[in-house]
């Protein structure tokens, strides 16, 4: 018995040493990102923020040239998002409509490793050891920010597959801002693809139309800058994009510190947008709108309210 306790102590000690090396955690994150894209899984998870709790089903399938993801709400009215061939479809007004095209993330995983190396300076990473979620063995990782301009992230990573089984976003008072956790999960094995993918819009005109939409998003130097972007956020992209219900294209700048991103949107004021002004939130994401000199500024990010406000107030036109 004494021998056994000693052995456990050694193991714990080993864990302690692993926690010292930050590379370990970075590797875990890479595993998470890789697993999220390359693993076929289907499961039910709960998402909670404030006093709301929702249950959703997620299905992720890997195809030779793309990924298929479907997110369905299991509570209340039918709500659904499908991501396929780099495009996003949403169930709106009783039909599936394309709402966005994805091209910015095509660079995975090289883009991601850049972001990951930036993490070191922005967060203190802690390996909290092993645990379990929904009956699966997980490793628990905590990313504590160095300042109060970003949230802390706690991740529960499946030790076998690298899938993220639980994640919480915590504010500076260690209160949970939002969290999600799988309650049931199936990894790999057989999936009934035809029935899962049924109802998908696959008409040729749909694809042609979305290709046209993709082409209208162009990278460029807008001349807009924000001086108060928190330290450690690096610019990922700067694009001009069409947006639903907007007459003029919208300028979008995206910054990331490795775990969270901040988007800045700048557009000429449309007719009735003075009602847009103000702060709102979606779980860990905060949105802040303000009209300045005939332009509508919007800042969106998985960062505390003070950060989106600080960033918005610092937006200025620097000239090209």
């Amino acid at each position, binding site marked *: 018995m004494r021998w056994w306790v000693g052995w456990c102590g050694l193991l714990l000690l080993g864990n302690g040493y692993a926690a010292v090396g930050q590379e370990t955690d970075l590797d875990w994150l890479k595993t*998470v*990102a890789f697993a*999220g894209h390359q693993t076929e899984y289907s499961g039910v998870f709960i*998402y909670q923020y*404030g006093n*709301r709790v*929702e249950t*959703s089903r*997620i299905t*992720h399938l890997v195809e030779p040239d793309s990924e298929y*993801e*479907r*997110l369905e*709400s299991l509570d209340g*009215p*039918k*709500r*659904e998002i499908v*991501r396929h061939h780099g495009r*996003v479809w949403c169930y*709106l*007004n009783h039909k599936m409509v394309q*709402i*966005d095209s994805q091209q*910015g993330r095509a660079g*995975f995983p090289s883009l*991601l490793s850049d972001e990951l190396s930036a993490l070191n300076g922005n967060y203190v990473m802690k390996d909290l050891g092993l645990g379990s979620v929904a009956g699966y063995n997980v490793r628990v990782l905590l990313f504590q920010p160095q300042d109060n301009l970003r949230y802390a992230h706690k*991740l529960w990573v499946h030790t076998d597959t690298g899938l*993220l089984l639980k*994640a919480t976003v915590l504010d500076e008072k260690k209160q949970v801002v*939002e969290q*999600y956790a799988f309650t049931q999960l199936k990894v790999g094995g057989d999936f009934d693809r035809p029935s899962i993918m049924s109802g998908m819009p696959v008409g040729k005109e749909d694809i042609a139309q979305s290709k046209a939409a993709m082409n209208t998003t162009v990278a460029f130097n807008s001349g807009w800058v924000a001086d108060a972007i928190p330290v450690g956020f690096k610019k*990922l992209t700067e694009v001009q*994009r069409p*947006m639903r*219900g907007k007459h003029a294209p919208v300028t*979008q700048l*995206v910054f*990331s510190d*490795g*775990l*969270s*991103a901040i*988007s800045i*949107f700048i557009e000429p004021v449309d007719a009735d947008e003075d*009602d*847009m002004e*103000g*702060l*709102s939130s*979606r*779980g*860990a*994401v905060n949105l802040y*709108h303000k009209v300045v000199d005939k332009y509508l500024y*919007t800042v*969106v990010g*998985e960062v505390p*309210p*003070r950060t989106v406000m600080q960033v918005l107030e610092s937006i200025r036109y620097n000239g090209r």
Partner: protein
Amino acid sequence: MKNNISALMDGELFEDEAEALFDGLKRDSEAHRDWAAYHLIGDVLRQPEYIHRDISGRVRELMRNEPTVLAPRTRGISQKVRNIGLSAAASLMALGVVMWMSVQITPETTPQLAMQQTNLRPASLQTQSKSNDYLMAHQEFSPSNDMNGDASYIRTVSYSPEEKTQ
């Protein structure tokens, strides 16, 4: 007698003893009161939702002391009373509608913390659906996409405009 009642309630009496006691209870009104009091004590100790207490006697007594109003009621007054009643009901209803509307309109999503910090007005319904577009555009580039996969879109799904128009 009291001991017997207590024993009966605890189920400690034999059948013939219980029969005799029941007969006694029927005749002796004081014993009957004890029987009721013991049950009340037991009920209070068990803290149930409802407690049986016979208040008919007290009500009868109080009613006896109430003066009887013999003056005839005039039609005018009753009409007035009815009018006041109706208008009161109407304003109550209006209040109800206003409260119902505010419940419908107030976005429960307005962050408490953020509101305290800035005293900004809550986002309107239309803003909710407009915000979705910004959210989707942002999500596309966010690292949370790589971490959580599609699950990060839950923030958009959980606030679909469809749900809001209900």
